[in-house]
């Protein structure tokens, strides 16, 4: 193919792509077919199409799942997808996860730590304002974090900030966060969805009831579980917020979401029904975003309860699982196989350990080592945790049967699953939301004394490394420590981690984004509202 002909063709493709008629994937495929290398094609996409200057205007209508009439503005109770998405659209955080899954500034413009990582200093953005025009100051930042701390706090993020001993205000735009023990990850923790920045009252508490924040959009009308109408916060301190208005419509029924997208009632929807994904993707005006996430399925086994107290039994159960088939059949391919340690490929410090394969001989071997010829266990699950959870357990039990392992899948009631089954039954099905860093995840659910140590796993070396790595600011040494911890979790830990799920959401082709999507939450980490725009 001659050079000029190719350039002409690439230019035309770029034009089509800018109009939204060609997806990134299609563009890549055609460019490679035209003789470009994949990386050149990717670079071309970034420079020619994605950088096509976003433009302002329009009302972005989004159909969300998991919005409830009981959703409150209290950040301590944030739990539903509806709450988390609205929080990202209307309130801001000190730091953010960027579309490239790195850490970027939001309300704080810079941060630094003492060498022992025990005192963190955040320089706040001086241009940031709340929706009612008030300036955002260090006092607000301190009060917003303190809201989750202290004796009487009812916040679900209380344990996240348990190490914080004091928050000091230094002038109008600087805060120092002091920790009981060093933590290199504190700036990452500040992206947690509970830790929104709110206006402080005179007594040091925060004003959360009004729904006011310092985010890109302000609430004009809010009917929990029905609809929220937002308008651009003109004083927002950052680039972006291209849409004039946002309308968040709660569409809990998957069919209603898909129909609304197809008929043009909304421009984007969250959580596409996986069973009909292939049909939706065929629609000419719709683009599906299939984003690998750090959200994991775990099957914790209580390591202090027989038969799981024998590491050979745990290993046998890990080898008896055909992960690829679970991803293909339960997630319809929208996931990645897990490797029994809770660090996803998109997370920092991901160690690329050899993948554990489905190996019945090894499963039998470990069973024999445990002195057993047959193993009978019950695995509890409920479909409210993940649609298809019970099916997954049944499929897993079929995988394990030839090795002499009889797993009985038990369907538990959807109601009260988190209070009555999780942490109570010795072997159950759990789904975790994504956490930004390995330290965050391990401290929450794998540390020996963590309230949510769901597998009751006690490993001295692991816990020693966890504390060392927490305050280690040298990236290389830190990386090596996490690698060792993942190896321990993989071969000694009490959790079968069969897979990480993807976020699968869809949008009208008129809605454009940079081509990179944060994997922390749906819709570009809950930040599509200010990062995306309408093609002209």
């Amino acid at each position, binding site marked *: 193919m001659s050079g000029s002909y190719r350039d002409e063709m690439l230019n035309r493709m770029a034009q089509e792509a800018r109009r939204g008629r060609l997806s990134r994937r299609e563009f890549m495929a055609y460019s490679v077919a035209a003789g470009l290398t994949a990386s050149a094609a990717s670079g071309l996409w970034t420079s020619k199409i994605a950088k096509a200057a976003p433009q302002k205007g329009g009302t972005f209508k989004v159909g969300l799942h998991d919005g409830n009439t009981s959703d409150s503005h209290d950040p301590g109770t944030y739990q539903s997808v509806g709450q988390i998405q609205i929080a990202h659209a209307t309130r801001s955080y000190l730091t953010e996860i960027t579309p490239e899954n790195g850490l970027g500034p939001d309300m704080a413009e810079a941060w630094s730590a003492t060498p022992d990582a025990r005192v963190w200093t955040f320089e706040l953005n001086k241009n940031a304002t709340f929706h009612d025009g008030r300036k955002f100051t260090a006092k607000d930042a301190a009060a917003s974090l303190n809201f989750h701390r202290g004796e009487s706090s009812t916040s679900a993020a209380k344990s996240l900030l348990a190490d914080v001993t004091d928050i000091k205000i230094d002038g109008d735009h600087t805060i120092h966060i002091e920790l009981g023990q060093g933590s290199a990850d504190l700036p990452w923790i500040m992206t947690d969805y509970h830790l929104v920045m709110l206006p402080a009252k005179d007594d040091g508490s925060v004003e959360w009831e009004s729904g006011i924040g310092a985010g890109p959009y302000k609430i004009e009308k809010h009917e929990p579980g029905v609809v929220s109408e937002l308008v651009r916060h003109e004083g927002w301190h950052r680039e972006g917020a291209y849409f004039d208005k946002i309308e968040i419509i709660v569409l809990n029924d998957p069919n209603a979401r898909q129909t609304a997208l197809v008929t043009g009632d909304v421009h984007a929807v969250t959580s596409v029904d996986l069973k009909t994904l292939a049909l939706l993707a065929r629609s000419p005006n719709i683009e599906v975003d299939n984003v690998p996430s750090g959200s994991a399925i775990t099957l914790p086994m209580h390591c202090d309860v027989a038969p799981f107290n024998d590491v050979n039994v745990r290993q046998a159960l890990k080898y008896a699982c055909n992960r690829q088939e679970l991803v293909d059949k339960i997630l319809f391919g929208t996931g990645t196989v897990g490797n029994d340690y809770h660090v996803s490929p998109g997370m920092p410090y991901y160690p690329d350990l050899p993948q554990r394969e489905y190996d019945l001989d090894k499963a039998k071997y470990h069973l024999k080592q445990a002195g057993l010829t047959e193993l009978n266990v019950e695995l509890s699950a409920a479909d409210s945790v993940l649609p298809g959870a019970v099916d997954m357990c049944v499929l897993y039990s079929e995988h394990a049967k030839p090795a002499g392992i009889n797993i009985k899948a038990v369907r538990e009631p959807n109601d009260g699953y*988190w209070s009555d089954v999780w942490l109570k039954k010795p072997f159950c099905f759990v789904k975790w939301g994504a956490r930004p860093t390995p330290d965050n995840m391990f401290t929450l659910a794998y540390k020996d004394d963590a309230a949510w140590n769901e597998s009751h796993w006690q490993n001295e070396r692991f816990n020693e490394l966890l504390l060392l790595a927490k305050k280690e600011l040298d990236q290389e040494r830190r990386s090596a420590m996490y690698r060792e911890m993942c190896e321990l979790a993989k071969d000694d830990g009490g959790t079968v981690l069969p897979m990480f799920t993807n976020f699968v959401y869809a949008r009208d082709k008129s809605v454009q984004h940079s081509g990179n999507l944060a994997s922390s939450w749906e819709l570009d980490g809950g930040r599509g509202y200010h990062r995306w725009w309408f093609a002209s």
Partner: protein
Amino acid sequence: MGDVLDIIVKRLALGAVTLLVISIIIFGMVELLPGDVAQAILGQGATAENLAALRARLGLGDPAIVRYFDWLGGAVLGDFGRSAVTDTPVGDLIGPRFANTLFLACYAAVIAVPLAITLGVIVALLRNTIFDRVANVATLTAISSPEFFLGYILILYLSVKTGYFPAIAKLSSDMTFLDLLHRTFLPALTMVLVVVAHMMRMTRAAIINLLASPYIEMARVKGMPAWKVIVKHALPNAWAPIINVIALNLAYLITGVVLVEFVFVYPGIGQLLVDSVTKRDFPIVQACCLIFAATFILLNLAADVLSILTNPRLRHKK
């Protein structure tokens, strides 16, 4: 007329007792559900510490019986309390949604009741013809299909494929009345399909039943046209059973809409009830259920009173 008033007063008093019993049953049921409102609010994020703090804030420490009588004390005076989750007064939460549900029920009833009675009269007139069979099969098929299925079929053919009507019944305050009727047509039509069969079949049966009576034969013999015999002579005597069935179906239009609301994303009371049960938000569950119960009680009362009024024989004791 004195008799009728007497009946109304007696029935209302009985209704109040029924509501009281129902409130006790609902309270018991919510108590029996696993988990409490604090656990439901915090979900996977619950720890022993923040659970205890939240329970204290919500006043869940008191024994069940004390909490019930606290609620009852307020309810008798017309104060149904505040939502345990969002701390909004129950009235503010339920009011607008109940109005939406009532609107949809009225919309459906205005179409369904005349349609069902007219169809009933026509099929009685043309009984055992092809028309009778087709009408019966069609309405019985509609009533036998689950509401969400009917809803999806209507969405597929009247919205996705043809675009005549919107698929989601999203309401906004700047809608004109015509917009509103257009937006909510599909959910209303679904409800109509669900209730028509019952009323139509009852009208048909009641009329056919009367057609064998001597006075109808007399009317026929004197040369009256068949449709006039039915409308003027048979129908007035058939009202009592028909009214009862209509009342039952009207009540269903209000209490049975949960699935239709879900499919069409209509912000009615059913969705609120489901959300509140999941969150164990007792004051709202209680208020919603009592509204449903009261609907049944009042509509049944209305049906009985109307049956008596339309039938002079019932008004005068022998």
